[in-house]
């Protein structure tokens, strides 16, 4: 597991995190530390807390114990520095917005309520569309894009937001091989630029090609580190061979 963090690279610190639904902990006393420049796969069986972990880091769920820090700062105050990519089915693709409009949304946290876009904002929008090969598609309504292009448009919005931490919930679900390839390339690019990317992922095949670091969960943390060392048969047996905790015995958090 990487603890190095140089310059303004983000370090995500999760300390003793518990998130529960109706007293059943989906994530139980989980601690980890991740540095920038890594593409991290979050693995585990259904119900192991993959989405819960991402949502908790995104500040969408309340931590029952523990805390989450980005760098030295509490995550709640670091909102513009992180970005959460929704699952594809939760997006209204008929929304009247073009690719450029979507990427411009990323600048909103920086420009305030009414200020017009400055040269720097416009530059950031154009630059992030360029980075994700979206310039030729700038004026397309978002429904007119392929699945992979749609994912890239959302990544470009996050880039325009100058986010350091990218949280992606099952982004590869439903993408064919070509689209998966372009998405993987885009994530690779972000990683090389020093960003920290957390991706929940359910398929174990090609895990090593996609992610340099892996987190294996089943409520509790089973392993976290270089992908090859985490996804060992032993660890996987431990993660997938253990029933998901669903609230059988007494366990309270004082």
């Amino acid at each position, binding site marked *: 597991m990487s603890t190095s963090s140089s310059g303004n690279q983000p370090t995500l610190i999760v300390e003793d995190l518990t998130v529960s639904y109706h007293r059943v902990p989906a994530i139980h006393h989980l601690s980890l530390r991740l540095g920038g420049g890594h593409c991290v796969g979050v693995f585990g069986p259904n119900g192991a807390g993959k989405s819960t972990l991402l949502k908790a880091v995104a*500040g969408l769920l309340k931590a029952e114990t523990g805390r989450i820090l980005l760098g030295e700062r509490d995550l709640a105050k670091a909102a513009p520095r992180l970005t959460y*990519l929704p699952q594809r089915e*939760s997006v209204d693709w008929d929304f009247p917005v073009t690719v450029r409009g979507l990427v411009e949304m990323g600048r909103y946290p920086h420009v305030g*309520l009414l200020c017009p876009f400055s040269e720097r904002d416009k530059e950031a929008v154009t630059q992030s569309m360029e980075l994700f090969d979206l310039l030729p598609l700038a004026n397309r309504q978002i429904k007119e894009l392929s699945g992979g292009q749609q994912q890239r448009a959302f990544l470009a919005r996050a880039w325009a937001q100058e986010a350091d931490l990218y949280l992606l919930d099952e982004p590869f679900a439903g993408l064919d091989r070509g689209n998966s390839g372009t998405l993987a390339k885009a994530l690779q690019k972000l990683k090389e630029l020093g960003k920290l990317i957390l991706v929940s992922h359910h398929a174990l095949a090609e895990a090593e090609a996609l992610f340099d670091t892996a987190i294996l969960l089943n409520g509790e943390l089973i392993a976290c580190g270089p992908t090859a060392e985490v996804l060992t048969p032993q660890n996987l047996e431990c993660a997938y061979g253990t029933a998901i905790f669903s609230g059988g015995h007494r366990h309270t958090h004082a």
Partner: protein
Amino acid sequence: MSTLSHLLSLVTEPLGYTFIQRALLSCALIGFTNGFLGTFIILRRQALLADALSHSLLPGLAVAAILVGLSPGGLLLGGLVAALLVALGGQLMARNSRLKDETAIASLYIIAFALGIVLIRFAKVKVDLTHFLFGNILGVGNGDLWVSYAAAFLTITLLVLFQRPLLLTLFDATVARASGIKVGWIEAGLLTLTVLGLVASLQAVGVLLSLGLLILPAATAYLLTDSFTRMLWGGAFLGLISSVGGLFFSFYANIPSGPCIVLLLAILLGIAYLVAPRHGILPKLLRGRHFHEESLERWEGHQGHDHDVPQRKDEC
């Protein structure tokens, strides 16, 4: 020449009356404001919630009529409180019981509506139920006009001021919350403005048709454009011209103004539904069968495609 001056007098003649002037001004303001607000309601997919709220205004109006008579301020406050009670009550019921929120809100609003009809009988002043249900634009007084001014000013100012966080919330509330926007406040504010828009349009179109001014202009604009900004101002513009046009028509045809305005909006929606360049059904039908040549062409070259183009296998 005489026909032209005759036509002109058709427009100018009613303008000589003060009550028509007031009605027109009020209609124009409300049409514009509610057309503008409509975009937010449609994109938030709350058209049916707005319908429920419009019905739940009635008991509030009745209670206001009982307590303070027909003063516009009292009616505004009464309607606002009643609709917000139904909206919040519905949420509360859904959270604490097995009932889903649309069942809870539908139950509450229809109960509120029935209660309103009963309560109106107890008003000290003589109230015609049909005025509340269908509006009475020609009865617009100076007080009503002030309500229109205030509603228009408040609504447009707030929506323009908070356009960016609103847009992020409408597009994806979860992502907006993760990027630090107070989504709960935004949603509550939008709900309050919706109720304000409904109450402000009571004189023009009444409880039962107030939804029309809120939904139809923006729905029409939604079919015509893929730009959020154009949808906003387009909806406002359509609301404005339909309200004014509908009022003139109602004056000459001697039909109540509410149905005239709503039917004029309906004609515009119908036209957009049929012939909107990209999203209308006729252009879609006329666009031909499918891109036959174009689909085959891509196997020849690599233009316009960002994935690896597979080799065409002629032998299979």
